[in-house]
């Protein structure tokens, strides 16, 4: 090989690498919009919060409201249900995390951490089974709480998973009391 060819080869290598690099960056830049367009659109994200009046819910009754396309279960628990929920030893639970958006991350799954202090009779939680998303049925299952008919998950009176394929407790959405009997979800 003559020395005169060397600069040419360097030039070619440079062009190869430069073209490849521009191509790779371009392809990555193109992939972002193509993939991200499938994420929730601005109108879906803008879905407002909802307000719910708790006063018509009698003790032992539940209501279901729709929030962001999903059901939220609000239950006015009986004294017996609250007692049962409190009696459980957290160490015995499959999921020991409270899964409550209103308490610090990683709080223990005690019944206290699943409801609001002073309002322990009202349990507010997503009606979305943490297994594959069915709506659990109230007053059913082996733990007096909810039973998911899809693949047989049992939740207790605090909405904590006790048995079945679901890995986590029913999540408690972000909510706050606007007045004594009114909450705002979201």
């Amino acid at each position, binding site marked *: 090989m003559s020395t005169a060819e060397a600069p040419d080869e360097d030039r070619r290598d440079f062009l190869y690498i430069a073209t490849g690099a521009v191509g790779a960056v371009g392809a990555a830049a193109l992939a972002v919009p193509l993939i991200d367009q*499938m*994420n*929730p659109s601005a109108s*879906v994200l803008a879905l407002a919060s909802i307000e719910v009046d708790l006063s018509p819910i009698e003790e032992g009754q539940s209501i279901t409201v729709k929030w*962001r396309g*999903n059901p939220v279960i609000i239950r006015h628990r009986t004294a017996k249900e609250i007692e049962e929920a409190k009696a459980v030893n957290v160490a015995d639970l499959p999921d020991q995390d409270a899964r409550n958006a209103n308490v610090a991350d990683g709080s223990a799954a005690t019944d206290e951490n699943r409801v609001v202090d002073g309002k322990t009779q009202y349990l507010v939680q997503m009606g979305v089974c943490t297994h594959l998303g*069915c709506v659990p049925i109230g007053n059913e299952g082996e733990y007096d709480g909810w039973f998911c*008919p899809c*693949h047989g998950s049992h939740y207790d009176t605090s909405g904590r998973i006790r048995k079945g394929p679901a890995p986590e407790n029913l999540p408690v959405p972000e909510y706050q009391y606007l007045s004594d009997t009114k909450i705002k979800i979201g």
Partner: protein
Amino acid sequence: MSGHSTYNPTNPVMKWLDDRLPLPRLMYDSFVSYPVPRNLNYWYTFGGILMIMMVSQIITGIILVMHYTPHVDMAFDSVEHIRRNVNFGNVLQKWHAVGASFFFIAVYIHIARGMYYGSYKAPREILWMLGVAIFLVMMATGFMGYVLPWGQMSFWGAKVITNLFSAVPFFGEAIVTWLWGGFSVDNATLQRFFSLHYLLPFVLVGVVILHVWALHVTGQGNPTGVEVKSGQDTIAFTPFATVKDAFALSVFFIVFTAFVFYAPDYLGHSINYEEANPLVTPEHIVPEWYYLPFYAILRAVPDKLLGVVAMFGSIMIWFILPWLDTSKVRSAAYRPIFKQLFWLLMIDFFILGVVGANPPEGWWITVGQIATVYYFAHFLILLPLVGLLETPRPLPSSISDAVLAKNASKQPAAQPAE
């Protein structure tokens, strides 16, 4: 069996075309003069039946889209509109819906044929793996199509199946939100499923072309599992195989159309005639019958992630089947123990289907778990072992020998009279 071409156009126009774009030659060599083993039985007609079913789904599907509206407020009513108001709409809609079921009946028979005759063995591994890919595309297409009428089962089936991806560690939640385009299955989900349900059948056509290409490179297998050795072992595709395929197709269509006209809802779920309601899960959600065995495997495992892994694994395992089966003999006809295992697997698969259709309670759970364990044991333990331990029966020296021996044993009395 790509021998040299025997296409010899006499028409000058065809000659002119052949010199420029030899498409008629390709068709002639692939579907007319193409040599196939002379001993193919009716189990080998299902590939052709599948082709016709695919075309049938595409034609009826394109027609349905002319009248269907992919929006949560209108989808359900638009399918009712097709059934009640569109000219011949009730037939066309049922043809497509029942057609999906019969497409799957044909594909299950086709796959079982492959497993029985060891069609997946060298040199047909790629052919087999393309078939598994076809099956996966069919499953995805059928699933998304089922969502379109937006009934209760459509909605909850979609929710449960897309939620399978939430089992992925770390990114699960983000993936599901991305798939849905929201926080639940909703209008964004319906519209993208509609788009993909239109696209995937054409992807299917592409993979099927590769499948047939691979078939024509290795040549067709046959019930003896002995490769073609001479011209004596083969007959021309047309007219012999064409006629056999056409006859089988006619019988298949008689059964298929009987369902379309007399029992269009038999294979479906009546709850899907109730419009989707995101706040109420039906008492008992079950997927369409053709997903049931895999659904049973999902539910047999009490852990979310492992259940999903087992379910996908139960199909993925087919990809490595050519290497799991250690026997040199292809056909179950010459493998006495393997033959019994094959039928046990069929029974096991059927039991899984029954379990999948029943609620996950009581002893159904136990039955499902035993059947799941057996399913995986068949592929991962029994198949490799049997190949090493079993003594196969002697193979015929050629396909024509096998055919002649069979014919001789059929008319023993005829011989002395000659």
